[in-house]
């Protein structure tokens, strides 16, 4: 092998390593609803972090990404909040199975998505920002409230950096968006059926 070819191969492999994909860790406890996962109610995310409004920001971003796929019918956030008020569920608490059943009885979703933000950090480093986000998302049955799938995902904004500063994610919103896309893509890859299927 010529020297130049060897150099090209090494460069190619190093680029591949730089683009290494950190896939979300999905645990399937039960099968998703047989009728598909078209109508989805996203429950307020819980956060165990000090980042101000961290849970609310990730919620908005994830919600948007779910809608942006164009493959789900997502219930408005306001409807979920209104039901929380009526059923006396605090937004900082995860509804129990009976409460999920009641919400399901009102909205008739196929799936509930709930989440917990475990870590959310932003640290300025010169011209860039080191971002880190760790979260767990749960998929519950829209009728019974039973936990079906659970996804753990952790990423750093610097992991997306390619050449120089390109690709690096410098905001927690950007990182949440990218991670939401990865989680949704993984769910679809793992067999989640949507409104369009």
């Amino acid at each position, binding site marked *: 092998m010529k020297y130049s070819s060897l150099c090209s191969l090494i460069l190619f492999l190093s680029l591949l390593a730089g683009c290494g994909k950190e896939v979300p860790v999905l645990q399937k406890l039960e099968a998703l609803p047989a009728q598909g996962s078209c109508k989805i109610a996203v429950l307020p995310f819980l956060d165990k972090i000090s980042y*101000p*409004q961290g849970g*609310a*920001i990730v919620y*908005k*971003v994830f*919600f*948007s*990404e779910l*809608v*942006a796929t164009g493959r789900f*019918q*997502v219930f*408005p*956030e*306001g*409807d979920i*909040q*209104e039901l929380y008020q*009526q*059923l*006396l569920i605090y937004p900082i608490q995860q509804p129990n199975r*009976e409460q999920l*059943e*009641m919400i399901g*009885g*009102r909205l008739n979703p196929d799936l509930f998505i709930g989440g917990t933000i475990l870590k959310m950090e932003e640290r*300025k480093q010169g*011209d*860039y*920002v080191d971002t880190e986000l760790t979260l767990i998302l749960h998929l519950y049955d829209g009728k019974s409230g039973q936990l079906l799938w659970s996804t753990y995902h952790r990423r750093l904004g610097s992991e997306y950096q390619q050449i120089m*500063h390109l690709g690096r994610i*410098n*905001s*927690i*919103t*950007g990182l*949440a*968006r990218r991670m939401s896309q990865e989680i949704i893509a993984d769910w679809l890859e793992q067999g989640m059926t949507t409104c369009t299927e």
Partner: protein
Amino acid sequence: MTRMAVQLPIHKGQEKNLRALPFAELCLALLIVLFSWTGMASAQSIAFFPLLDLSEDPNGTNGPLTEKVRQELLNREKTLIPAEEIMNFLVRNRIRTLGRLTSYQTSLIRKELGADLVLQGTVCQVDEGDTPLLSLNLQLSRTSDDQIIWAKTEHLYYSDLTSLLGLEDPHNLEDLYEPFFTSLFATLPESSDLGGKAIDTLNIDTVIISPNYLRPGEKVSCKVKMHNLLNEEAIQPQLVLSVSGQEYPLILDEEGYYLQTSWPAEQEAGFYPITLKASWPSGIVQQGVVGSYSVDVQEAGVELHLIGTEHDGEILFSDKLLIIPKLLEPEPITRWEITVTDEEEEAIVIMAEPGHVPRRITWQGKTSLGSIAPPGNYWITFKVWDRAQRESSAEAAVQFRPDGPEILVEVTQDEERVTVDLDNIVNLPLIFWWAKFYGEDGNLLKLVQGSELPVSIELEGSSDPEYKIQCLLTARDILGNQTQKNIPNLFKLAESEADFEDISIETEWIEEF
């Protein structure tokens, strides 16, 4: 307009027919189609609501960015409902939270503002300083069926735009606007199919169930307030509540505000969902769970553990008593109360708090007013109330013994010897005692110590009538109470008893010295 819109597919599917048309007519038809399509797009009015700003607080607003987004939409030739009308709508309908409109509110926007679409958004992050950052989330909903048809989150940090030469690097927030909004609105639909039909939903405004936890047979009351009906005919459905297979019709209350009904709770313990059924004259029946209540048939039960010193089957303490309440049937508790009652059945301590049972309570022998309680027997009563207001209580007795041991000293003498008898007149065992006897010249005559009393101590006597023996006496009981006495002259015990002085704390260090 609808007819023209339908003709659009013909443009592709029937080329031969179009070719057959005269050129002028063809141009005219195309122009009409073009204008009508543009007109349809721009005619879709958008109600753009002020932005929720999460960088401020959970209910923050951002006026400047709201105005900027509004301007960007107008630059893209969107038809917007005037901002004043939006503000009036928010005030009129008492909408205090931005960024999360309900389906009902979206329907109201269609009815009151005539908007086809609703655009609401959230500022996730914003930094207007030297290192500008902007993160914005927008959602577009269709008012005809309350569906969210488009949503996007856009984020931009100044270093995302920096270049090698740094010629056009952003320095403030405004420098981010152009690339930011270009990207944000890149996928915003030019027009949307407005043919969606609203899903039939129960427009419930408020539900009040009282109480949520109750005993068998107690009265459950449920009040429901429905949103105003949006249909033109204002046809009211018949509303009933269904619980455990029983139906209870809802009746308008005296104020005409709530629909309400009540019924006796079930006899069996359990969780009972309440379903609202709406029967429309058309025969359609809608239903949904509006709440629930739980019937509790068993009290929590409580027992008390007192951590003190046990003696003859009784608990005693002198300094601190640890009280550990424990639920026998653990369940959520709404409130608890502790009382300490003296021998005359008078409560000297009363303390009550809402919430969970404390892991432990320390009583330092003080009354609720802060004074030290007198020594004696006390009864500690701990009560808890569960969510159904069932009361459980436990009681335990305790002896408060804050005083030190009382040592009786008796002296008998003759010419040859002096006998000192010591006795513990309080029925509480001692851990130790010691007595030191000093002669007139300060020499230590005798040191005696032990843990049991009574005891008889013999000292050498003297024929000198002025002869004096000083005694230092210390005793500590099992509660840690300590007595220290200095008797200057044992022979004048009766006279000087009133002059006994308590010794200040005597340390081992001083003794050894």
